[in-house]
């Protein structure tokens, strides 16, 4: 034991002597410098993807995983590394570092909460391109960093039209997890879409404070149904419970993340789902060609109906959707895709009657993602 004690003391002293040499901040640049000579993201052997949940969640993470497999097919010379269940904290930094060790020069951090670790890794490895899915980077964007996303609220707006047409009680239900900007936009767009065809429609919201707790989802759905809601939609990572619960009680369902029409053969209306492949492949090609810096991806890149390549697309229709509803949706799609179109085209009023976007105003993507309030017609409070 005496030996162990001495060793420990020695280690402690050595450690103390070494402390204080560098600060523990995101701006720390590490070894592996000199890469500035070549464009970031080039010369790699692998591409890394991290997912916050399991890659077979039948939802958000599975969609991103499928996109990664499209990359594998398009670039047979690149190894595609995937890591699932990566928490939105320092563990993400570690896993990304591990991918870089394995030869990755391009890393997709696919969860909203992966932004901080992604920026940390990008700062430490100027030769690696790190791109984050769904969040917004503020301030100056580094040469090897970017965020990307679809304008998720566009197909949600279209699905809102289907919901507004289908409801008999004029009460729609929305089960969401956290008040992040994507969810706020989706809820608002859903309500605006429904209201555009049914002025009496209102959207009731319940949050579960968890991306996937099937028990809480069941309870939230049941609570909404017992208030007379007859169309249910959601923003959760795992989606099956909400859909099956609504189907069992004879309510309509609007899907999210994936085509789950098989889970609700009677009540499925439509929904929104991911198709990441083309965007991922385009991004990887741009990067390995050495053209990432200064490209559209080296920014907060958002695509939608206007540019025609939204990675978030409308799901197939269910059996009960009428031709009239489909025509309404096509009409709305054309309006949104037009130059001065937007689901949030003014006038848009908030819950408490204030003007959010003035009459005729077509807000920018950034302005829409910055919304911190619910629009008029949403019932329920935003947790502050």
């Amino acid at each position, binding site marked *: 034991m005496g030996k162990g004690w001495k060793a420990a003391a020695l280690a402690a002293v050595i450690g103390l002597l070494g402390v204080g040499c560098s600060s523990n901040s995101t701006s720390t640049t590490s070894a592996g410098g000199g890469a500035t000579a070549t464009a970031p993201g080039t010369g790699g052997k692998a591409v890394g993807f991290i997912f916050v949940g399991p890659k*077979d969640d*039948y939802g958000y993470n599975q969609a991103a995983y499928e996109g990664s497999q499209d990359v594998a097919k398009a670039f047979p010379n690149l190894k595609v590394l995937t890591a699932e269940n990566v928490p939105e904290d320092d563990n993400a930094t570690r896993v990304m570092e591990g991918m870089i060790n394995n030869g990755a020069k391009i890393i997709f951090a696919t969860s909203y909460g992966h932004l901080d670790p992604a920026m940390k890794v990008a700062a430490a490895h100027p030769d690696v391109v790190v791109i984050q899915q769904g969040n917004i980077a503020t301030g100056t964007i580094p040469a090897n960093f970017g965020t990307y996303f679809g304008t998720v609220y566009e197909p949600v707006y279209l699905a809102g039209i289907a919901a507004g047409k289908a409801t008999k009680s004029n009460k729609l239900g929305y089960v969401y997890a956290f008040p992040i900007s994507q969810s706020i936009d989706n809820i608002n767009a859903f309500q605006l879409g429904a209201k555009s065809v049914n002025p009496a429609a209102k959207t009731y919201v*319940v949050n579960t404070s968890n991306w996937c707790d099937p*028990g809480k989802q069941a*309870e939230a759905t049941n609570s909404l149904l017992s208030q007379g809601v007859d169309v249910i939609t959601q923003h959760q990572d795992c989606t099956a419970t909400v859909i099956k619960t609504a189907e069992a009680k004879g309510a309509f369902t609007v899907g999210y993340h994936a085509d789950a029409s098989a889970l609700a053969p009677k009540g499925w209306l439509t929904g929104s789902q991911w198709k990441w492949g083309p965007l991922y492949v385009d991004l990887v090609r741009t990067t390995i060609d050495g053209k990432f810096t200064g490209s559209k991806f080296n920014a907060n890149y958002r695509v939608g109906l206007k540019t025609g390549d939204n990675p978030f697309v409308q799901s197939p229709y269910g059996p009960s959707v009428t031709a009239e509803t489909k025509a309404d949706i096509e009409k709305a799609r054309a309006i949104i895709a037009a130059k001065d179109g937007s689901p949030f085209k003014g006038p848009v009023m908030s819950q408490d009657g204030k003007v959010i976007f003035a009459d005729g105003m077509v807000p920018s993507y950034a302005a829409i993602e910055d919304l911190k309030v619910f629009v008029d017609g949403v019932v*329920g409070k935003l947790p502050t």
Partner: protein
Amino acid sequence: MILPVEVMVGAVRGGTSILYAALGETVSERAGVINLGTEGCMLVGALTGYAVTASTGNPWVGVLAGAVAGGLLALVHAILVLSRGANQLATGLVVLFLGLGLTSLFGAAYVGRSINAFKPVGIPGLSSIPGVGDVLFNHDPLTYLSYLAGPAVWWLLYRSRPGLILRAAGERQEVLAAYGHSPLRVRYLAVVAGGALAGIGGAQLSTAYANAWFENMTQGRGFIAVALVIFAAWHPIRAVWGAYLFGAALALSPALQARGYGFNQFALDAIPYVVTIGVLVFLGRRRAHAAPEGLRKVFEMSGT
């Protein structure tokens, strides 16, 4: 539906899986063995129940398989504690990690699968009673079964000979041994039975309540069950009420939100634990005496 009724409906709906697990843990602890891995037993029960229902098409077979799976995982705990002399708090946690890992690995194939799940069946006549009908008589069969489970466990523990032997194993094993029973065998049975009940609770969650499998879907309900047994002072009927109390706490927030009120779930979530500690403080001595003697040895309650 008016708010109090809806919360009570939600309490029964959401409390049932916890109720089974808490009853199981009561049986186990009465025999002197605590299982912190109840969460793991629920998880294997949830997955096995879902998977077997998917392949057989019969949810009853699924629940049975879930019970067996929960029991088997608890058996690992029992072997480590009873035959290998390991610390039971620690091995419970080991069982938890094992259950979490195994179910995540083998469960991937069942995410997004549809099964022939249990459906709510209204009891003719009773289900149309205003209020009460919705609260008690419009549920899935496993919930009805749970109404019997509490009294059955109570009867077993306090009115039957096997129950007497089981409690003796947890209190005075020397006496039991003197009468020619093997305390070891009784404890094994109790731990495995406890795991099986937790497995049923997990299966209720996946095949009836949530109608889905998803990794780590129990989200701490097994730990709630362990805390509940203490709250209930190792009494099965009080454990039933405790489970419904937790269920109500989970149901209150969505019920309020669906009516347009903002609500912070976390203040609510902490209440049952604070209440439990409060109860222990105010009834300290009495509750402490309610603890099975065997458990007190684990917790080292003598001496001060």
